[in-house]
Protein backbone atom coordinates (compact mmCIF):
# COMPACT_ATOMS: atom_id res chain seq x y z
CA UNK A 1 0.00 0.00 0.00
CA UNK A 2 1.13 3.54 -0.63
CA UNK A 3 1.75 5.59 2.49
CA UNK A 4 0.87 8.83 0.76
CA UNK A 5 -0.37 9.52 -2.75
CA UNK A 6 -0.49 12.93 -4.35
CA UNK A 7 -2.84 13.02 -7.33
CA UNK A 8 -2.71 15.94 -9.76
CA UNK A 9 -2.12 18.54 -7.09
CA UNK A 10 -2.39 22.19 -7.99
CA UNK A 11 -2.36 24.68 -5.19
CA UNK A 12 -2.30 28.43 -4.68
CA UNK A 13 -1.81 30.05 -1.27
CA UNK A 14 -4.50 32.61 -0.34
CA UNK A 15 -4.11 36.00 -2.05
CA UNK A 16 -1.43 34.74 -4.42
CA UNK A 17 -1.81 34.30 -8.13
CA UNK A 18 0.80 31.67 -8.89
CA UNK A 19 0.65 27.95 -8.25
CA UNK A 20 2.95 26.88 -5.38
CA UNK A 21 2.42 23.34 -6.68
CA UNK A 22 1.49 22.89 -10.29
CA UNK A 23 0.48 19.41 -11.40
CA UNK A 24 2.24 17.20 -8.85
CA UNK A 25 1.51 13.48 -8.74
CA UNK A 26 3.55 11.01 -6.73
CA UNK A 27 3.13 7.76 -4.80
CA UNK A 28 5.23 7.40 -1.65
CA UNK A 29 5.64 3.70 -0.95
CA UNK A 30 5.57 2.28 2.53
CA UNK A 31 8.90 1.80 4.29
CA UNK A 32 11.03 3.91 1.98
CA UNK A 33 13.18 6.94 2.72
CA UNK A 34 12.43 9.76 0.29
CA UNK A 35 14.45 12.93 0.00
CA UNK A 36 12.87 16.06 -1.46
CA UNK A 37 15.31 18.64 -2.80
CA UNK A 38 15.14 21.80 -4.88
CA UNK A 39 15.65 25.55 -4.62
CA UNK A 40 13.81 27.52 -1.93
CA UNK A 41 10.36 28.49 -3.10
CA UNK A 42 10.04 25.40 -5.31
CA UNK A 43 7.18 23.94 -3.22
CA UNK A 44 8.97 21.58 -0.82
CA UNK A 45 7.37 22.84 2.39
CA UNK A 46 4.01 23.13 0.60
CA UNK A 47 4.12 19.38 -0.08
CA UNK A 48 4.81 18.78 3.62
CA UNK A 49 1.84 20.94 4.59
CA UNK A 50 -0.41 18.92 2.24
CA UNK A 51 0.59 15.58 3.69
CA UNK A 52 -0.33 16.65 7.17
CA UNK A 53 -3.59 18.21 6.02
CA UNK A 54 -2.44 21.70 7.06
CA UNK A 55 -3.36 22.55 3.49
CA UNK A 56 -6.25 23.15 3.13
CA UNK A 57 -7.47 23.00 6.75
CA UNK A 58 -5.13 25.70 8.08
CA UNK A 59 -3.72 27.51 5.05
CA UNK A 60 -6.93 27.63 2.93
CA UNK A 61 -6.16 28.78 -0.65
CA UNK A 62 -7.17 26.99 -3.87
CA UNK A 63 -6.48 23.28 -3.90
CA UNK A 64 -7.13 20.92 -6.81
CA UNK A 65 -6.40 17.20 -6.81
CA UNK A 66 -6.32 14.79 -3.87
CA UNK A 67 -3.93 13.71 -1.16
CA UNK A 68 -4.42 10.20 0.18
CA UNK A 69 -2.90 8.92 3.40
CA UNK A 70 -2.88 5.12 3.58
CA UNK A 71 -5.45 5.01 0.79
CA UNK A 72 -7.92 7.46 2.35
CA UNK A 73 -8.31 11.10 1.26
CA UNK A 74 -6.74 13.35 3.84
CA UNK A 75 -9.91 15.39 4.41
CA UNK A 76 -11.78 12.22 5.44
CA UNK A 77 -9.37 11.59 8.30
CA UNK A 78 -10.28 12.83 11.76
CA UNK A 79 -7.41 15.19 12.70
CA UNK A 80 -6.75 13.30 15.95
CA UNK A 81 -6.44 10.02 14.00
CA UNK A 82 -4.30 11.54 11.26
CA UNK A 83 -1.75 12.79 13.77
CA UNK A 84 -1.17 9.24 14.98
CA UNK A 85 -0.34 8.24 11.38
CA UNK A 86 1.64 11.19 10.08
CA UNK A 87 4.23 12.95 12.22
CA UNK A 88 5.34 16.33 10.94
CA UNK A 89 8.53 18.02 12.04
CA UNK A 90 8.45 21.70 11.16
CA UNK A 91 11.17 23.57 9.37
CA UNK A 92 11.53 26.12 12.11
CA UNK A 93 11.85 24.70 15.64
CA UNK A 94 11.13 28.15 17.03
CA UNK A 95 7.60 27.80 15.60
CA UNK A 96 7.05 24.17 16.44
CA UNK A 97 7.85 24.27 20.14
CA UNK A 98 4.59 24.93 21.94
CA UNK A 99 5.83 27.74 24.18
CA UNK A 100 3.32 26.65 26.82
CA UNK A 101 5.42 23.99 28.54
CA UNK A 102 8.12 24.78 31.07
CA UNK A 103 10.38 21.77 30.62
CA UNK A 104 11.69 19.76 27.70
CA UNK A 105 10.18 16.69 29.31
CA UNK A 106 6.67 18.19 29.29
CA UNK A 107 7.16 19.48 25.76
CA UNK A 108 7.93 15.99 24.51
CA UNK A 109 5.00 14.51 26.39
CA UNK A 110 2.49 17.03 25.08
CA UNK A 111 1.34 14.92 22.12
CA UNK A 112 1.03 11.78 24.22
CA UNK A 113 -0.85 13.73 26.87
CA UNK A 114 -3.35 14.90 24.26
CA UNK A 115 -3.89 11.29 23.20
CA UNK A 116 -4.72 10.41 26.80
CA UNK A 117 -1.79 8.01 27.24
CA UNK A 118 -1.29 6.62 30.72
CA UNK A 119 1.14 8.66 32.85
CA UNK A 120 3.72 5.94 33.57
CA UNK A 121 3.86 5.00 29.91
CA UNK A 122 4.23 8.65 28.96
CA UNK A 123 7.18 9.13 31.29
CA UNK A 124 8.84 5.97 30.03
CA UNK A 125 8.38 7.00 26.40
CA UNK A 126 9.71 10.52 26.96
CA UNK A 127 12.77 9.12 28.74
CA UNK A 128 13.46 6.64 25.98
CA UNK A 129 13.16 9.24 23.21
CA UNK A 130 15.30 11.87 24.93
CA UNK A 131 18.05 9.30 25.44
CA UNK A 132 17.85 8.26 21.81
CA UNK A 133 18.10 11.84 20.55
CA UNK A 134 20.84 12.72 23.01
CA UNK A 135 18.94 15.39 24.94
CA UNK A 136 18.33 13.49 28.19
CA UNK A 137 20.45 15.99 30.11
CA UNK A 138 18.14 18.79 28.93
CA UNK A 139 14.85 17.36 30.18
CA UNK A 140 14.53 19.73 33.13
CA UNK A 141 15.39 22.81 31.05
CA UNK A 142 12.94 25.30 29.65
CA UNK A 143 12.55 24.62 25.91
CA UNK A 144 12.25 28.35 25.24
CA UNK A 145 15.71 29.01 26.65
CA UNK A 146 17.61 26.46 24.57
CA UNK A 147 19.94 27.13 21.64
CA UNK A 148 18.64 26.77 18.08
CA UNK A 149 20.28 23.38 17.65
CA UNK A 150 18.96 22.08 20.96
CA UNK A 151 15.44 23.27 20.18
CA UNK A 152 15.59 21.52 16.83
CA UNK A 153 16.34 18.25 18.61
CA UNK A 154 13.51 18.81 21.11
CA UNK A 155 11.07 19.41 18.24
CA UNK A 156 12.31 16.22 16.61
CA UNK A 157 11.93 14.22 19.83
CA UNK A 158 8.39 15.46 20.46
CA UNK A 159 7.29 14.01 17.12
CA UNK A 160 9.22 10.74 17.47
CA UNK A 161 7.39 10.20 20.75
CA UNK A 162 4.15 9.87 18.76
CA UNK A 163 5.50 6.74 17.02
CA UNK A 164 3.63 7.36 13.75
CA UNK A 165 3.84 5.23 10.57
CA UNK A 166 4.88 8.13 8.39
CA UNK A 167 7.31 10.95 9.17
CA UNK A 168 7.30 14.15 7.17
CA UNK A 169 10.39 16.11 8.12
CA UNK A 170 11.10 19.61 6.86
CA UNK A 171 14.78 20.60 7.17
CA UNK A 172 15.38 19.11 10.61
CA UNK A 173 19.06 19.99 10.68
CA UNK A 174 19.21 23.60 9.49
CA UNK A 175 20.43 24.82 12.90
CA UNK A 176 22.57 21.79 13.72
CA UNK A 177 26.31 21.32 13.60
CA UNK A 178 27.72 18.60 11.30
CA UNK A 179 27.91 16.08 14.12
CA UNK A 180 24.32 16.69 15.23
CA UNK A 181 23.20 16.60 11.61
CA UNK A 182 24.74 13.20 11.00
CA UNK A 183 23.16 11.85 14.18
CA UNK A 184 19.73 13.06 13.01
CA UNK A 185 20.27 11.27 9.70
CA UNK A 186 21.18 8.11 11.59
CA UNK A 187 17.96 8.36 13.60
CA UNK A 188 16.03 8.86 10.37
CA UNK A 189 17.67 5.78 8.91
CA UNK A 190 16.70 3.80 12.01
CA UNK A 191 13.09 4.85 11.40
CA UNK A 192 13.38 3.30 7.98
CA UNK A 193 14.70 0.11 9.55
CA UNK A 194 11.53 0.07 11.65
CA UNK A 195 9.59 0.05 8.33
CA UNK A 196 8.48 3.64 8.76
CA UNK A 197 8.01 5.82 5.69
CA UNK A 198 10.22 8.89 5.77
CA UNK A 199 9.77 11.98 3.61
CA UNK A 200 12.57 14.42 4.24
CA UNK A 201 13.13 17.92 2.88
CA UNK A 202 16.79 18.84 3.25
CA UNK A 203 19.49 20.95 1.61
CA UNK A 204 22.42 18.88 2.93
CA UNK A 205 22.84 17.01 -0.26
CA UNK A 206 25.89 14.97 0.77
CA UNK A 207 23.86 13.30 3.48
CA UNK A 208 20.85 12.80 1.23
CA UNK A 209 23.17 11.00 -1.21
CA UNK A 210 24.42 8.78 1.59
CA UNK A 211 21.12 7.90 3.25
CA UNK A 212 18.03 8.39 1.03
CA UNK A 213 16.54 5.62 -1.14
CA UNK A 214 14.82 7.91 -3.58
CA UNK A 215 15.16 11.58 -4.44
CA UNK A 216 12.48 13.92 -5.77
CA UNK A 217 13.58 17.20 -7.30
CA UNK A 218 11.11 20.06 -7.22
CA UNK A 219 11.40 23.30 -9.12
CA UNK A 220 8.77 25.99 -9.64
CA UNK A 221 6.06 23.76 -8.18
CA UNK A 222 6.76 20.80 -10.45
CA UNK A 223 8.61 17.52 -10.01
CA UNK A 224 11.43 17.79 -12.54
CA UNK A 225 13.11 14.51 -11.66
CA UNK A 226 12.60 11.55 -9.37
CA UNK A 227 14.04 8.09 -8.86
CA UNK A 228 16.78 6.21 -6.99
CA UNK A 229 19.24 8.61 -5.31
CA UNK A 230 22.23 7.59 -7.41
CA UNK A 231 20.34 8.03 -10.69
CA UNK A 232 18.92 11.45 -9.77
CA UNK A 233 21.96 13.03 -8.15
CA UNK A 234 24.39 12.01 -10.88
CA UNK A 235 22.40 14.02 -13.43
CA UNK A 236 24.67 16.98 -14.13
CA UNK A 237 21.79 18.91 -15.66
CA UNK A 238 20.63 19.67 -12.08
CA UNK A 239 23.61 22.01 -11.71
CA UNK A 240 22.35 24.19 -14.56
CA UNK A 241 18.97 24.30 -12.84
CA UNK A 242 20.55 25.63 -9.61
CA UNK A 243 19.79 22.44 -7.73
CA UNK A 244 22.52 21.45 -5.27
CA UNK A 245 24.43 18.25 -6.06
CA UNK A 246 27.21 16.65 -3.98
CA UNK A 247 30.69 18.13 -4.51
CA UNK A 248 31.84 14.71 -5.66
CA UNK A 249 29.48 14.99 -8.65
CA UNK A 250 31.06 18.34 -9.58
CA UNK A 251 34.47 16.73 -9.11
CA UNK A 252 33.51 13.79 -11.36
CA UNK A 253 32.28 16.24 -13.99
CA UNK A 254 35.53 18.23 -13.88
CA UNK A 255 37.54 15.01 -14.19
CA UNK A 256 35.53 14.16 -17.31
CA UNK A 257 36.14 17.62 -18.79
CA UNK A 258 39.85 17.19 -18.14
CA UNK A 259 39.76 13.92 -20.09
CA UNK A 260 40.18 11.84 -16.92
CA UNK A 261 36.71 10.28 -16.76
CA UNK A 262 35.88 8.24 -13.67
CA UNK A 263 33.34 6.20 -15.64
CA UNK A 264 30.49 7.73 -13.64
CA UNK A 265 29.69 10.75 -11.49
CA UNK A 266 30.22 9.63 -7.88
CA UNK A 267 27.55 10.78 -5.42
CA UNK A 268 29.44 10.04 -2.18
CA UNK A 269 33.04 10.30 -0.98
CA UNK A 270 33.26 6.52 -0.67
CA UNK A 271 32.19 6.10 -4.28
CA UNK A 272 34.57 8.85 -5.44
CA UNK A 273 37.49 7.25 -3.62
CA UNK A 274 36.80 3.86 -5.23
CA UNK A 275 36.45 5.44 -8.70
CA UNK A 276 39.71 7.38 -8.40
CA UNK A 277 41.64 4.39 -7.07
CA UNK A 278 40.33 2.20 -9.91
CA UNK A 279 41.37 4.82 -12.43
CA UNK A 280 44.84 5.09 -10.90
CA UNK A 281 45.21 1.31 -10.95
CA UNK A 282 44.05 1.24 -14.59
CA UNK A 283 46.74 3.78 -15.49
CA UNK A 284 49.48 1.76 -13.86
CA UNK A 285 48.63 -1.38 -15.84
Amino acid at each position, binding site marked *: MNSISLKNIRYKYPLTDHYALDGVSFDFEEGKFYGIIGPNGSGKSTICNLMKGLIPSFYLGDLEGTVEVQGKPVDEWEPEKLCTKVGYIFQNPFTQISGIRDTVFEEIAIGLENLGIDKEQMIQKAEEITKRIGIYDLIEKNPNELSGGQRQRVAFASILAMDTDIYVIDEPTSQLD*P*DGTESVFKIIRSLKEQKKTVILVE*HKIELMAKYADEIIVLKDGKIIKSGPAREVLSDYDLVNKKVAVPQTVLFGH*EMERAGKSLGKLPITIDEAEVCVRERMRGEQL
Partner: protein
Amino acid sequence: MSIELQHVHFRYPDGTLANEDLNLVIHEGERIAIVGQNGAGKTTAVKLMNGLHKPTEGEVIINGINTRNKSTAQISGMVGYVFQNPDDQIFKNTVRDEVEFWSRYNKLDEKEIQSRAEWAAKLCDIEKYLDINPYEIPYSTKKFVSIAAVLTARNPYLILDEPTAGQDVAGVECLSKLLHYMEQDGKSVITITHDMEFVADNFKRVVVMAHGHIIADGTPAEIFAEESILSEAKIKKPQICELSTRLGLGNIMKIETLVNKL
Protein backbone atom coordinates in the same frame (compact mmCIF):
# COMPACT_ATOMS: atom_id res chain seq x y z
CA MET B 1 40.94 49.88 14.27
CA SER B 2 39.78 46.52 15.56
CA ILE B 3 37.54 44.43 17.76
CA GLU B 4 39.62 43.09 20.63
CA LEU B 5 38.67 40.44 23.13
CA GLN B 6 41.09 40.38 26.07
CA HIS B 7 40.79 37.44 28.47
CA VAL B 8 37.03 37.51 28.13
CA HIS B 9 34.85 35.28 30.29
CA PHE B 10 31.09 35.23 30.14
CA ARG B 11 28.76 33.58 32.60
CA TYR B 12 24.97 33.52 32.11
CA PRO B 13 22.84 34.53 35.12
CA ASP B 14 21.98 30.84 35.70
CA GLY B 15 25.67 30.16 36.31
CA THR B 16 26.54 28.54 32.97
CA LEU B 17 30.03 29.56 31.90
CA ALA B 18 29.59 30.05 28.13
CA ASN B 19 32.90 31.69 27.24
CA GLU B 20 36.24 31.23 28.96
CA ASP B 21 39.36 33.30 28.38
CA LEU B 22 38.66 34.40 24.83
CA ASN B 23 41.49 36.32 23.19
CA LEU B 24 40.92 37.56 19.69
CA VAL B 25 41.72 40.54 17.48
CA ILE B 26 39.61 41.22 14.41
CA HIS B 27 40.90 44.07 12.27
CA GLU B 28 38.64 46.43 10.42
CA GLY B 29 37.97 45.07 6.94
CA GLU B 30 38.84 41.51 7.94
CA ARG B 31 36.57 38.59 7.09
CA ILE B 32 36.44 35.71 9.52
CA ALA B 33 34.40 32.55 10.04
CA ILE B 34 33.59 31.20 13.49
CA VAL B 35 32.90 27.46 13.55
CA GLY B 36 32.25 24.82 16.19
CA GLN B 37 29.57 22.62 17.70
CA ASN B 38 26.16 23.75 18.90
CA GLY B 39 26.66 25.02 22.43
CA ALA B 40 30.36 25.83 21.88
CA GLY B 41 29.74 29.48 22.77
CA LYS B 42 29.84 31.02 19.29
CA THR B 43 26.68 33.12 19.57
CA THR B 44 27.61 34.22 23.10
CA ALA B 45 31.02 35.33 21.82
CA VAL B 46 29.62 37.46 19.00
CA LYS B 47 27.01 39.00 21.30
CA LEU B 48 29.93 40.19 23.41
CA MET B 49 31.29 41.94 20.32
CA ASN B 50 28.26 44.15 19.83
CA GLY B 51 27.51 44.89 23.46
CA LEU B 52 24.44 42.64 23.78
CA HIS B 53 26.49 40.87 26.43
CA LYS B 54 29.05 42.51 28.69
CA PRO B 55 31.95 40.31 29.79
CA THR B 56 31.83 38.84 33.30
CA GLU B 57 35.62 39.18 33.30
CA GLY B 58 38.05 40.66 30.80
CA GLU B 59 37.59 43.48 28.31
CA VAL B 60 36.00 43.89 24.91
CA ILE B 61 37.43 46.87 23.04
CA ILE B 62 35.82 48.10 19.82
CA ASN B 63 37.85 50.67 17.89
CA GLY B 64 39.42 51.72 21.18
CA ILE B 65 36.15 51.87 23.12
CA ASN B 66 35.50 49.52 26.02
CA THR B 67 31.98 48.02 25.71
CA ARG B 68 31.68 47.96 29.49
CA ASN B 69 31.21 51.73 29.59
CA LYS B 70 28.74 51.95 26.71
CA SER B 71 25.15 50.92 26.09
CA THR B 72 24.30 48.26 23.50
CA ALA B 73 22.71 51.01 21.40
CA GLN B 74 26.01 52.92 21.35
CA ILE B 75 28.03 49.83 20.41
CA SER B 76 25.54 48.74 17.77
CA GLY B 77 26.43 51.89 15.86
CA MET B 78 29.80 50.25 15.20
CA VAL B 79 28.93 46.57 15.15
CA GLY B 80 25.81 45.29 13.40
CA TYR B 81 24.45 41.93 14.49
CA VAL B 82 22.07 39.81 12.42
CA PHE B 83 20.26 37.38 14.71
CA GLN B 84 20.36 33.65 14.17
CA ASN B 85 16.58 33.52 14.13
CA PRO B 86 15.12 36.25 11.90
CA ASP B 87 11.86 36.04 13.86
CA ASP B 88 13.75 37.44 16.88
CA GLN B 89 14.67 40.49 14.88
CA ILE B 90 11.96 41.30 12.37
CA PHE B 91 9.00 43.28 13.71
CA LYS B 92 7.59 45.48 10.96
CA ASN B 93 4.61 44.74 8.71
CA THR B 94 6.38 45.04 5.40
CA VAL B 95 9.87 44.18 4.25
CA ARG B 96 10.28 47.80 3.15
CA ASP B 97 9.45 49.16 6.64
CA GLU B 98 11.84 46.66 8.14
CA VAL B 99 14.67 47.62 5.81
CA GLU B 100 13.99 51.35 6.27
CA PHE B 101 13.64 51.17 10.04
CA TRP B 102 17.23 51.97 11.03
CA SER B 103 17.46 54.96 8.68
CA ARG B 104 14.12 56.38 9.84
CA TYR B 105 14.94 55.85 13.50
CA ASN B 106 18.18 57.73 12.96
CA LYS B 107 16.33 60.48 11.08
CA LEU B 108 18.23 60.29 7.81
CA ASP B 109 16.75 62.37 5.02
CA GLU B 110 14.15 60.75 2.80
CA LYS B 111 16.45 60.41 -0.20
CA GLU B 112 19.11 58.67 1.88
CA ILE B 113 16.50 56.36 3.45
CA GLN B 114 15.34 55.28 -0.01
CA SER B 115 18.80 54.88 -1.39
CA ARG B 116 20.06 52.76 1.53
CA ALA B 117 16.96 50.55 1.45
CA GLU B 118 17.24 49.97 -2.29
CA TRP B 119 20.95 49.28 -2.06
CA ALA B 120 20.53 46.77 0.78
CA ALA B 121 17.54 45.07 -0.85
CA LYS B 122 19.46 44.67 -4.09
CA LEU B 123 22.52 43.27 -2.34
CA CYS B 124 20.33 40.73 -0.51
CA ASP B 125 18.23 39.94 -3.56
CA ILE B 126 14.93 40.73 -1.84
CA GLU B 127 13.69 43.60 -4.02
CA LYS B 128 10.64 41.66 -5.15
CA TYR B 129 9.52 41.15 -1.55
CA LEU B 130 9.66 44.81 -0.47
CA ASP B 131 5.89 45.28 -0.22
CA ILE B 132 5.19 41.93 1.40
CA ASN B 133 4.75 41.07 5.08
CA PRO B 134 8.00 39.46 6.25
CA TYR B 135 6.03 36.64 7.85
CA GLU B 136 4.67 35.57 4.47
CA ILE B 137 8.04 34.82 2.91
CA PRO B 138 10.13 31.66 3.35
CA TYR B 139 12.42 31.37 6.38
CA SER B 140 15.61 31.43 4.30
CA THR B 141 14.53 34.61 2.49
CA LYS B 142 13.52 36.19 5.78
CA LYS B 143 17.14 35.76 6.84
CA PHE B 144 18.10 38.07 3.96
CA VAL B 145 15.52 40.61 5.12
CA SER B 146 17.17 40.67 8.53
CA ILE B 147 20.60 41.04 6.90
CA ALA B 148 19.40 43.90 4.66
CA ALA B 149 17.92 45.71 7.65
CA VAL B 150 21.27 45.64 9.47
CA LEU B 151 23.25 46.53 6.33
CA THR B 152 21.51 49.91 6.10
CA ALA B 153 23.37 51.05 9.22
CA ARG B 154 26.63 50.67 7.24
CA ASN B 155 28.61 49.66 10.31
CA PRO B 156 32.33 48.96 9.97
CA TYR B 157 31.71 45.50 11.48
CA LEU B 158 28.90 43.11 10.56
CA ILE B 159 28.12 39.87 12.39
CA LEU B 160 26.10 37.16 10.64
CA ASP B 161 24.88 34.34 12.89
CA GLU B 162 24.41 31.18 10.80
CA PRO B 163 23.34 32.86 7.57
CA THR B 164 23.89 29.63 5.59
CA ALA B 165 21.26 27.66 7.57
CA GLY B 166 18.55 26.48 5.19
CA GLN B 167 19.96 28.35 2.18
CA ASP B 168 19.81 26.88 -1.31
CA VAL B 169 22.40 27.27 -4.09
CA ALA B 170 21.18 30.78 -4.97
CA GLY B 171 21.13 31.82 -1.30
CA VAL B 172 24.71 30.68 -0.69
CA GLU B 173 25.83 32.45 -3.88
CA CYS B 174 24.15 35.64 -2.68
CA LEU B 175 26.00 35.41 0.65
CA SER B 176 29.33 34.95 -1.16
CA LYS B 177 28.58 38.00 -3.26
CA LEU B 178 27.71 39.98 -0.14
CA LEU B 179 30.99 38.99 1.56
CA HIS B 180 32.90 40.04 -1.52
CA TYR B 181 31.11 43.37 -1.68
CA MET B 182 31.71 44.11 2.00
CA GLU B 183 35.40 43.39 1.60
CA GLN B 184 35.64 45.79 -1.35
CA ASP B 185 33.89 48.34 0.83
CA GLY B 186 36.46 47.86 3.62
CA LYS B 187 33.90 46.37 6.01
CA SER B 188 34.58 43.51 8.35
CA VAL B 189 32.24 40.50 8.36
CA ILE B 190 32.22 37.94 11.16
CA THR B 191 30.22 34.86 10.18
CA ILE B 192 29.13 31.92 12.31
CA THR B 193 28.47 28.88 10.14
CA HIS B 194 28.30 25.09 10.12
CA ASP B 195 28.83 24.89 6.37
CA MET B 196 32.48 23.94 5.90
CA GLU B 197 32.28 24.11 2.10
CA PHE B 198 31.16 27.72 2.50
CA VAL B 199 34.08 28.31 4.85
CA ALA B 200 36.62 26.77 2.46
CA ASP B 201 35.25 28.76 -0.49
CA ASN B 202 34.93 32.16 1.20
CA PHE B 203 37.28 32.60 4.14
CA LYS B 204 41.00 32.95 4.71
CA ARG B 205 40.69 33.06 8.50
CA VAL B 206 38.73 30.58 10.61
CA VAL B 207 38.27 30.70 14.38
CA VAL B 208 37.33 27.35 15.91
CA MET B 209 35.46 27.20 19.20
CA ALA B 210 34.78 24.29 21.55
CA HIS B 211 33.49 24.14 25.14
CA GLY B 212 33.45 27.93 25.45
CA HIS B 213 37.09 28.32 24.32
CA ILE B 214 38.83 29.37 21.14
CA ILE B 215 40.85 26.27 20.26
CA ALA B 216 42.26 27.31 16.89
CA ASP B 217 42.67 30.35 14.64
CA GLY B 218 44.09 29.92 11.14
CA THR B 219 43.46 29.39 7.43
CA PRO B 220 40.97 26.71 6.32
CA ALA B 221 43.90 24.59 5.06
CA GLU B 222 45.60 24.80 8.48
CA ILE B 223 42.39 24.05 10.38
CA PHE B 224 41.31 21.13 8.22
CA ALA B 225 44.79 19.59 8.46
CA GLU B 226 44.59 19.29 12.26
CA GLU B 227 42.71 16.10 13.08
CA SER B 228 42.78 16.89 16.81
CA ILE B 229 41.01 20.23 16.25
CA LEU B 230 38.43 18.66 13.95
CA SER B 231 37.59 15.98 16.47
CA GLU B 232 37.53 18.32 19.48
CA ALA B 233 35.25 20.80 17.70
CA LYS B 234 33.39 17.97 15.94
CA ILE B 235 33.67 19.62 12.56
CA LYS B 236 34.04 17.84 9.25
CA LYS B 237 36.27 18.59 6.32
CA PRO B 238 34.60 19.68 3.10
CA GLN B 239 34.10 16.71 0.76
CA ILE B 240 36.92 17.58 -1.62
CA CYS B 241 39.35 18.03 1.26
CA GLU B 242 38.26 14.70 2.78
CA LEU B 243 38.64 12.94 -0.58
CA SER B 244 42.10 14.35 -1.22
CA THR B 245 43.20 13.34 2.29
CA ARG B 246 41.96 9.80 1.77
CA LEU B 247 43.85 9.65 -1.52
CA GLY B 248 47.04 10.71 0.27
CA LEU B 249 47.21 14.07 -1.51
CA GLY B 250 46.98 16.32 1.55
CA ASN B 251 44.28 18.89 2.22
CA ILE B 252 43.13 20.19 -1.14
CA MET B 253 40.25 22.68 -1.00
CA LYS B 254 39.45 23.27 -4.66
CA ILE B 255 38.05 20.80 -7.16
CA GLU B 256 40.29 22.03 -9.98
CA THR B 257 43.43 21.62 -7.87
CA LEU B 258 42.49 18.02 -7.10
CA VAL B 259 41.65 17.32 -10.75
CA ASN B 260 45.05 18.68 -11.80
CA LYS B 261 46.86 16.49 -9.27
CA LEU B 262 45.26 13.29 -10.51
